[in-house]
């Protein structure tokens, strides 16, 4: 059992929790993730490590289905059954020169950690964070503190620039020499945004989020196509060269359990708990 020390709704449907998991916190690096299981009947879901401090690991997630709703419902002091990590390779942090970090939606949660690591490695870091609207924007302050420059966009113009993170990225790479780019967000956002750096051949990383089970390379559920080769995102990634990724395949595989996911959230909404009646 692992205790959730803090839990907050930091934006519309986006939650921040701090989990007491020294074995994860101790070795966690930017770009890595955990797999959690809420309780004895729970599924294993991957979530990015947003930060680690002392024995605590920060996780930021959007409540989208059964498991994330149930996780959001756990009060501070409550427990989850399992958390394993840190999993996956850390981000490729080195002295690149000038880096851009783009975060979309809940994906923004991964950006402060990567930005900070790159900053420490001597890079100039430009942040671009985008959300649907002002109410869904997260970590603006945290990113502003770390980055040399920060751009904010909202799809509806309710805050920062009206438009998409991709628009700002396009202008940024047109204006100055950029050495490496990270784009983290929903698959479709990563697909579209990474087009901005393709022609210029700028090294661009995306963090892939296929459906996982074990997270240790044992099942192959997370397989993706990168540069025409099969990779297991959990152990070979999760970050890959954006210009080599087959995003359409990723999105196809993400949809496989949609019917069951609807059934699971419907049951949850009916009962709002994991009690026997709810199941």
């Amino acid at each position, binding site marked *: 059992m692992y205790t959730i020390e803090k839990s907050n709704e930091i934006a519309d449907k986006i939650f921040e929790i701090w989990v007491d998991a020294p074995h994860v916190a101790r070795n966690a690096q930017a770009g890595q993730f955990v797999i959690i299981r809420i309780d004895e009947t729970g599924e294993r879901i991957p979530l990015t490590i947003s930060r680690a401090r002392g024995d605590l690991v920060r996780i930021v997630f959007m409540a989208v289905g059964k498991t994330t709703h149930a996780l959001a419902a756990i009060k501070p002091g409550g427990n989850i059954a399992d958390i394993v990590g*840190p999993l996956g390779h850390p981000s490729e942090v080195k002295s690149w020169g000038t880096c851009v970090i783009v975060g979309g939606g809940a994906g923004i949660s991964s950006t402060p950690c990567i930005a900070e690591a790159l900053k420490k490695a001597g890079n100039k870091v430009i942040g671009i964070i985008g959300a649907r609207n002002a109410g869904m924007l997260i970590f603006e302050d945290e990113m502003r503190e770390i980055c040399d420059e920060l751009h904010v966009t909202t799809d509806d113009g309710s805050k920062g620039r009206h438009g998409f993170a991709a628009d700002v990225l396009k202008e940024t790479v047109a204006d100055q020499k950029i050495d490496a780019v990270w784009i983290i967000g929903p698959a479709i956002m990563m697909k579209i945004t990474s087009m901005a750096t393709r022609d210029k051949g700028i090294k661009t990383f995306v963090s892939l989020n296929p459906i996982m089970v074990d997270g240790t390379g044992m099942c192959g559920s997370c397989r993706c196509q990168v540069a025409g080769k099969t990779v297991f995102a959990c152990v070979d990634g999760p970050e890959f060269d954006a210009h080599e990724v087959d995003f359409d395949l990723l999105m196809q595989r993400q949809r496989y359990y949609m019917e*069951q996911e609807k059934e699971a959230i419907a049951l949850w909404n009916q009962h709002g708990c994991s009690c026997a009646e709810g199941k």
Partner: protein
Amino acid sequence: MGDRPAEVRIHDFLEVDTGFSPEEAIAEANRCLQCKKPACVDGCPVNINIPVFIAEIAEGNFANAAVSIKTQNMLPAICGRVCPQETQCEILCILGNKDKPIRIGQLERFAADEERRTGIKPQDKKPSTGKRVAVIGSGPAGITAAGELAREGHSVVMYESLHLPGGVLTYGIPAFRLPKDVVNAELDQVLKLGVEVKLNHFVGKSVSLSELLTYDAVMLGTGAGLPYFMNIPGEHLNGVYSANEFLTRVNLMHADQFPRFDTPIAKASRVVVVGGGNVAMDAARTARRMGAKVTLVYRRRSEDLPARLAEIHHAEEEGIEFITCANPTRILGEQVVTGVECVRMQMCELDASGRPAAKPIDGDTFTLDCDVVIQAIGQGPNPVLVREIEGIERGRAGNVIADGDGKTSHPKIFAAGDVTTGAATVILAMGGAKKAAQSICSYLTSK
């Protein structure tokens, strides 16, 4: 006693084989000739003193039988159920020449089940040596090594990346063949020797290599969990599973009980399983229990199927359709699987494994309609940790090179089980782990 009827058991995950009654066990034990030079023992990778424990059963001293077995094998209820006895101890039983060999595995299981029913006796252990050993992986190799080392008085920490211990015994082999309460009881008895278990620890990530090397010795039992795919077109379609994924979703995560359990799995009406080993049989019979019509496609002949005889027989009884001498060439479908195209195979000259090489007959293809394809064509050693250990020698398949005593090229690191051999068997993993544990003991005392 014996097997539950196929038409009943395909609706549940309860054990198929109900085992011997005491009367049956005693009768079978009485058939044993108590050979002076028992050939059967040579066939057992952990050298159980087979005539001795059988004699105890014949006398009705079931508890003594279990105690005798456990001096050599701490997991008899498991091995009695899953060992390929017909190619190990039983094939060498002298009675097999004229009549049927003694059913050694069934007797071993019986003794262990009786002991579990009446309460497992705690094992003795030596006083503490003050030495610390890390065991990586909690499958048969890790468990066995941990138990042997703890008995010798070493302090053992066992790391497991999953949320439950047991390795393949827990996530791979289905409950209808190996009930999980049997696994848990046998694991518990080993862990009660004082082994500290750290679940949810992925060594190499949660525990760094330098942290690991602060132990006095390290035993690698990380198994062969890397699933192979066939690398044919259509493999990324939704509905294509590795057997590992399919079985893990069901055995470890209980996806068969969705939505009571949260893990989803395909609702398939027609399933094609590719392969012919135990893993393929387990996947096929699991899919059958979830209501699918199942076809198993194997590239060689039925006499070449590498699975245990009992599993093949059970699969047939349960209505699994076998198509032998055929191999998938393409998986069909848009986003989701709709079928598999296969080619018929012909058998040619014997290959290195002593089996005929299978070659496709060009143009002789056929198509099977299905909504799920499960690939059970083999697994490789888990590369994640091993590839990061500097100075450890590895084979072509990524397996750790260890000598017969479990020593690797790294003085502090020992290894056993599937990570050294590639996908093999429970009892071979245990046999290797016992030797590795002995090597670790001598290494620790010589230090």
